[in-house]
């Protein structure tokens, strides 16, 4: 009877070891959010200083009682700029959501940038066909899905290493993207679905709505479906997953298929913004930003641990960095260096934090 009382849930907030576990899981969920907030603050302050001309001038103005004027002069936190940041993050978020599935199984998908380019070419070419333009979006997504499934089949059934398979696909699909458009840029000035790239609902850009819808759907799959648990299980311990009756190949097929399909969706978003697609240039090194977002989000590179919310934060960090560095006038060259170092530093910090708190 005493045991009953102890184990009965929901009567009171958990105490003792239970609350420590809960705290740890909160720490893990929140993950990189503090770093995102710090970065935002930093860029806001730096953009204020930029507007004032120098640190001395900025401090002077605050001293002279123009505090609110100074705060408002910061360009980073303006509604317009934040909307731009969200739009910049949107395509990467969609790719990173697919990448989260793959990395959770302990795999990697290097081919998403190339798939995005090929799918964008397909989307624009179909949109230029008079009667079939409405097929542009589904065709692009299915095109991505097929390439993703091909990756998945090679990984799941031939047991080839994901890195090798998708590295090959990175190159091969890039070639396909160039082949499709005869290695030329395809335009469509009257793109029927351009609203996706440039329109907004009540001030919220469609790109952002789509990205968040994808994040929400991914959360649902990962946390509320059998498939989601199986994805975590395969990444956590593939042998045990097989012995527990999980159809490991099907799970792998799904994650690579999802990654490919989401790359196709990203292609639609990108094409809608540009009214054009180019097989050679589009989506170059997008896979790296997507991987960086997932890793920044605290997902373990060996699989089994991670969340889609972490990926959301990670994608935002990358977008904020790119936007903020431009805003305060850092040169393109230094942007690369700083971005790279921030990614390494943030993950190092995360590891350190987790290793000190997770041990009991």
């Amino acid at each position, binding site marked *: 009877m005493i*045991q009953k009382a102890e*184990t009965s*849930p929901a009567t009171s907030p*958990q105490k*003792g*070891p*239970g609350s420590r*576990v809960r705290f740890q*899981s909160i720490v893990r969920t929140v993950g990189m959010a503090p770093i995102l907030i710090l970065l935002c603050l930093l860029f806001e302050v730096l953009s204020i200083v930029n507007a004032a001309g120098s640190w001395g001038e900025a401090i002077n103005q605050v001293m002279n009682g123009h505090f609110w004027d100074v705060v408002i002069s910061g360009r980073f936190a303006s509604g317009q700029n934040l909307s731009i940041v969200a739009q910049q993050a949107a395509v990467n978020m969609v790719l990173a959501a697919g990448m989260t599935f793959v990395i959770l199984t302990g795999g990697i998908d290097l081919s998403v940038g190339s798939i995005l380019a090929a799918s964008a070419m397909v989307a624009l070419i179909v949109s230029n066909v008079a009667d079939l333009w409405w097929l542009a979006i589904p065709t692009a997504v299915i095109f991505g899905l097929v390439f993703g499934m091909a990756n998945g089949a090679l990984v799941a059934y031939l047991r080839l290493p994901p890195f090798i398979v998708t590295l090959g696909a990175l190159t091969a699909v890039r070639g396909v993207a160039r082949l499709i458009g005869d290695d030329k840029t395809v335009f469509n000035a009257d793109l029927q679905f351009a609203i996706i790239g440039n329109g907004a609902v009540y001030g919220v850009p469609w790109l952002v709505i789509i990205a968040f819808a994808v994040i929400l759907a991914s959360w649902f799959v990962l946390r*509320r*479906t*059998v*498939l*989601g*648990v*199986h994805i*975590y*299980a395969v990444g*956590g*311990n593939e*042998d*045990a*997953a*097989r*012995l*527990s*009756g*999980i*159809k490991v190949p099907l799970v792998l097929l799904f994650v690579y298929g999802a990654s490919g399909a989401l790359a196709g969706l990203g292609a639609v978003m990108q094409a809608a913004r540009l009214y054009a697609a180019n097989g050679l240039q589009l989506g170059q090194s997008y896979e790296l930003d997507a991987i960086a977002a997932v890793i920044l989000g605290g997902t373990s590179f060996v699989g*089994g*641990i991670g969340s889609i919310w972490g990926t959301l934060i990670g994608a935002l960090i990358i977008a904020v960095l790119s936007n903020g560095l431009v805003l305060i006038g850092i040169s393109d060259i230094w942007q690369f260096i700083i971005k790279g170092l921030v990614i390494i530093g943030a993950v190092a910090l995360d590891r350190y934090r987790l290793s000190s708190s997770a041990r*009991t």
Partner: protein
Amino acid sequence: MVSTVHSAPILEMRDIRKTFFSVKALTGVELTAWSGEIHALMGENGAGKSTLMKILSGAYRADPGGEIRIAGKPVTIDDPLSAKRLGIAVIYQELSLSPNLTVAENIHLGRELSKSGFIDRATMERDSSPVLERLGADFGPKTLVSDLSIAERQLVEIARAVHANARILVMDEPTTALSSRETDRLFSLVRQLKAEGMAIIYISHRMNEVYELADRVSVLRDGGYVGTLTRDELSAERLVKMMVGRDISGFYKKAQGEHHKTGALMLEVKDFSDGRRVKNVSLTVRAGEVVALAGLVGSGRTELARLVFGADKRLTGELWLEGQRVELHSPQAALSTGVAYLTEDRKAQGLFLDMSVHDNINLAVFGRDASRGGVLDLASAARRATAAIDVLKIRVAGPHVEVGTLSGGNQQKVLLSRLLETAPRVLLLDEPTRGVDIGAKSEIYRLIDELAARGVAILVISSELPEVVGISDRVVVMRDGIVAGELDGSAQQPITQESIMELATGARITTAA
């Protein structure tokens, strides 16, 4: 021959103790070996043979207090390198060669020859040749190790030891993976090394090998030293007695007459082979019966269980369940047919250590409970988890604690409850109490009993003889991939530690029923 008056033995180990986190692995063991002697080391699984040899090879450090002398001089063995310098070479069951390198490179591994900074392959190959020739190898020093058979690789390891002027050679069950012709060749090689004055410590479970080779035999039991027999004192009966005389009083014992009346034939394994470790094995388990699958490590028990479960592919054989022939091509098929397997390696192959107790318990049934769209039924999952924690008395703060933070016994209970959630008709339990504390052990025994009472057919693989004797209605003993014999507990075939050990080591060959 052995008691040379003037010289000291090449190896003396005295009062060797080793404790791992308060678990006593060795409690005062001694071992003496002379040059030109083959000294067999025997003992049950977990008796401490490997630990002792790891201390000799420098992989572990003994607790202070004991003494090791090499040729009369006290030495300390801090690490594998100092063992090597003292002339000690160990050939483990898992060979430690680099398959991507040549024979000559492997022989010189860690002692590569170089000429002005560049590796000197020519000289390495030249001075490997005589050693290989002397050992009767029919391959050259330039051969890649990956192109060699297991027996040939073993020969490379021996060549490495000879080349390093080893005086003491430890061989850990060297014949497990060899054919009988290869075994003969190995034996004549071992005798040749003995004649050349090497001391050979030969770890083996096999009575006939020990008879054939050993000058003396030392026996360990439960981390303690039991005694040493010389060749003329050797008898199978005596050795088995020395190996198994464990105190059984602390162990669970199924009360006589408490045996459930067993039902119809549930599981029939007919003529199973996998082409490697399992050779034409047949056995049966009735509903409500607990059958122990005993045998030494490496006798093919786990392999057999995995074949039944569909985790590995078999070459021959038929599987019958409740009188119907079934094909289980995958664990998934097995689980949905009602056959569940508890792995012997719960951390590597069983649990998802980063996932919660709740998820681990439900993992095999999430799919069954889910709605058609594959959306999780969180309510029934929570119910299952809470109920399992309650029934199996899993000590955990709550269902959402990660399994990795639990003790071994509680982890095992989580894994067991995952199997039980699938409501199996046949349970294959591989070492169900390994690494589990006493309390959890008796709870697992109680659970096995309850399941049998409910009519589940249970096959338990166990290396703990007292456990086998305590829980089983019937015992099937495997040796070298075959069924060596069956003990049904009758007066003619009593289930005792001695009778099991005799079958497992080949000291007694019964006509299998």
